[in-house]
């Protein structure tokens, strides 16, 4: 008996020391001012990182940051590509995030087709979203010739104009007549199809028309503006882009676009004379060269201090590029990213393995940096979409920490005070146990690299409330036993012994629910489950074992302060 008590005291002392050791980094970090931290970051960054790694981690809801869940769209992949698509996507996203330079990003798989990305302390949310969420499929495509483009545009105008009048006449007209009109329309289409070879004439008429504003006859091209005679592409006012997109989606317009051509907008809008415009291009669908031949990409400035990206191709890529550019000198070549045109410069001479992506007027050096990052990290194996997006501002996190800490302190004081008033000296012993409980709990959190969240703080408070329960059970039992006339020593022994089964049963039921909660969903809730289960398990030790050891220090009791 005596010896086992000695062992227990040794064990408790050891646990206290171990906890101090586990908590030391957190305490040190907490006592450092922001300026001190910055200093350490610049002088000994490794030290700070290892210190932060050993301290209690704060969840995104306390630290602020961004939590994004991406869904990998595997529907268009082949069977053998589907298997590791998510893993590859995860690796590529990790690469991009690492290069973006965010400390302690958390990236992991969720379920069969989701990737969770947590970026703490992030400021530029939209930039990060774009960086993570884009497929980054780089492709080089030739443009449709200006002549063919003009002819297709003209046909679109005519068919749309026809459709408009048809639509007006159609109102209240019998179905049979409608069918006749449709037949007429087909004839019109056929007529134009025959005219197709004669493109030059078409272009001139079109250009002539452009000078006279017959808007009603140009339902499509009225939205397009062309700068310069043979400029690659057109400009669409930002406000009018939705209308253009709607028109392009119409089936009758789709029919007019040749099978190996496609319309594509630019990546970003440009500003001309205080108006913002999107670029619109008619591209050949054929991919001349893709981003998989890229070995490096770096952001730089051109001679006008405009950002651009220099890229280097593999040997094979260089050969293909040389062939393509050599055969198309003086023609524009579109560089597209995820189907949108980054730029469409005119090829001046044969290019081999080194090239430049111009980024246009409004692009910033950050845009160039991000483009280089995604190009270097490579394209995702399949498109992803953001299906969950949570952003927690740093001030909300600070607020939560402050309020959480206040709640813990107040709640703690209330409980401590109550126990001392109600159970006197025994209550003080219980208070000591609760304090130790909290201390061990924090140490365990640090040692297990668990994350503290706002619900986790609520869990601490709840633990404080529940931890005294074991002592209340024991003390009430001791009181009962004393009432039956037992000696104090016997009452203490019986109290501990008889209360034990109830304490264990009650705590195990809490552990069952905590275990279930741990498997439910998101980080904050997991944080709560961890705190609750650790707290309850530790309370078994502090409230039952440690208080008992203290009670047993004295062998004989004449009176008991309870």
């Amino acid at each position, binding site marked *: 008996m005596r010896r086992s008590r000695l062992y227990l005291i040794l064990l408790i002392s050891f646990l206290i020391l171990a906890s101090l050791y586990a908590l030391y980094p957190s305490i040190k970090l907490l006592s450092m001012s922001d300026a001190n931290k910055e200093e350490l970051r610049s002088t000994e960054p490794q030290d700070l990182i290892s210190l932060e790694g050993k301290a209690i981690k704060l969840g995104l809801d306390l630290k602020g940051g961004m939590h994004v869940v991406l*869904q990998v769209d595997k529907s268009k992949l082949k069977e053998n590509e589907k298997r590791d698509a998510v893993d590859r996507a995860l690796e590529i996203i990790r690469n991009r995030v690492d290069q973006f330079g965010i400390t302690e990003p958390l990236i992991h798989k969720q379920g069969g087709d989701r990737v969770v990305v947590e970026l703490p302390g992030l400021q530029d949310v939209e930039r990060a979203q774009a960086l993570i*969420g884009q497929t980054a499929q780089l492709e080089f495509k030739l443009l449709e010739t200006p002549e063919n483009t003009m002819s297709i545009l003209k046909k679109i105008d005519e068919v749309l104009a026809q459709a408009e009048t048809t639509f007006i006449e159609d109102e209240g007209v019998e179905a049979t007549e409608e069918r006749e009109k449709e037949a007429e329309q087909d004839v019109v289409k056929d007529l134009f199809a025959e005219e197709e070879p004669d493109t030059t004439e078409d272009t001139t008429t079109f250009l002539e028309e452009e000078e006279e504003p017959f808007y009603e006859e140009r339902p499509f091209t009225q939205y397009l503006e062309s700068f310069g005679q043979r400029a690659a592409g057109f400009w669409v006012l930002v406000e009018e882009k939705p209308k253009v997109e709607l028109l392009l989606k119409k089936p009758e317009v789709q029919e007019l676009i040749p099978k190996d051509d496609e319309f594509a907008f630019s990546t970003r809008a440009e500003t001309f004379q205080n108006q913002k415009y999107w670029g619109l291009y008619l591209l050949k669908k054929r991919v001349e060269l893709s981003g998989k031949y890229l070995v490096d990409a770096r952001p730089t400035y051109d001679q006008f201090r405009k950002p651009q990206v220099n890229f280097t191709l593999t040997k094979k890529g260089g050969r293909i590029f040389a062939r393509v550019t050599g055969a198309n000198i003086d023609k524009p070549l579109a560089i597209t990213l995820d189907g949108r045109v980054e730029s469409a410069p005119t090829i001046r001479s044969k290019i081999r393995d080194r090239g430049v992506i111009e980024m246009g007027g409004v692009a910033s050096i950050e845009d160039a940096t991000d483009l280089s990052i995604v190009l270097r990290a490579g394209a995702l194996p399949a498109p992803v*979409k*953001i*299906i*969950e*997006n*949570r*952003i*927690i*501002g740093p*001030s*909300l996190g600070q*607020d*939560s920490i402050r*309020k*959480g800490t*206040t*709640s813990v302190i*107040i*709640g*703690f004081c*209330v*409980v401590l005070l109550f126990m001392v008033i*109600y*159970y006197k000296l025994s209550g003080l012993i219980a208070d000591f146990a609760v304090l130790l409980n909290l201390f061990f709990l924090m140490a365990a959190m640090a040692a297990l690299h668990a994350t503290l969240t*706002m*619900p986790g*703080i*609520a869990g601490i408070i*709840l633990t*404080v*409330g*529940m931890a005294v*329960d074991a002592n*209340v*059970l024991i003390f009430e039992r001791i*009181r009962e036993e004393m009432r039956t006339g037992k000696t104090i020593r016997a009452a203490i022994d019986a109290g501990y012994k*008889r209360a034990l089964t*109830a304490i264990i*049963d*009650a705590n*195990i*039921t*809490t*552990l*069952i*629910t*905590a*275990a*279930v*909660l741990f*498997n*439910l*969903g*998101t980080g*904050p*809730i997991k944080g*709560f489950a961890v705190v609750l289960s650790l707290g309850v398990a530790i309370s078994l030790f502090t409230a039952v074992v440690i208080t008992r050891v203290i009670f047993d220090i004295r062998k004989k009791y004449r009176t008991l302060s*309870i």
Partner: protein
Amino acid sequence: MLQILKKTNIDFIGKRYYAFAISGILVIFGLAAFVAIFLGKADLGIDFAGGTMIQGYFEKEVKIGDLRAALSRNGYDDAFIQSLHREKPNYFLIRVKATTDEEVTQISSDILSVLAKEFSQNKFNMDSVDGIGPAVGKTLQRQARWAVLLALAGILLYIWIRFDFRFGVAATITTLHDVLLVLGIFFILQKDITLLIVTALLTLAGYSLNDTVVLFDRIRENLKLFRKKGNFPSTINASINEVLSRTIITSLTTFAVVFTLFLVGGEVVHDFALALMIGIVVGTYSSVFVASPIIMEWERRSPKRFK
């Protein structure tokens, strides 16, 4: 010694019919809430329903009506707007239900630009954005349903092993009763059912069980002692009276800390703390007035002497 209660001898079992009536009515509300959730009629938080929630504050005064009108003008006439002036002046919560996964990031940035445009002289500082696609909501709903079922099954199993089948059933019914009751009260108060509320419900399932288990433990102990006297209701009554002061003290300390959380913990955990507060009261009541009478009635209808 300081005592909240002197030795009591209250006839709890005798009042069981009142308790059954009260519980019955409240459980019906809970069941209504449960059915409403399944039919999608209840106020599910965006965790489960999908949607976008933005929290933040304006630097100068803004009336909630003006904010509503501004959002309405820009196509968000179904936006739910709540003033959180408890937290900070001009602090608002804006919630829009999303319909597709594509809109998850779009709506939040769109609303932020609407606010910047409509209140160009008064900066809106974004505190947090939650955008959750319906697909994620569905996943969480499924997880939450499983979590509740698993927790109840685990409890039934554990009590069954530790006590016996009847105790297990009574404890599970009591736990279900507590969860439904809090759910019912939240339904009446028109509070959103969020993931954090489900967490609170599960936590209080564990907590209320705590009370029930302590009581059952004492009943089991007393049944052994009183075996020869054989008066079942009085054994239960005596057990309740014996553990009553413990039940009340523990409930008080736990209630006190949760109440602190409710008062100063801030908006994030406000409803969570409220659910726990209600749950603690309900859990204490139910262990005395629901769990024990079930055991008692069961024994009366089909006598099977406990060990």
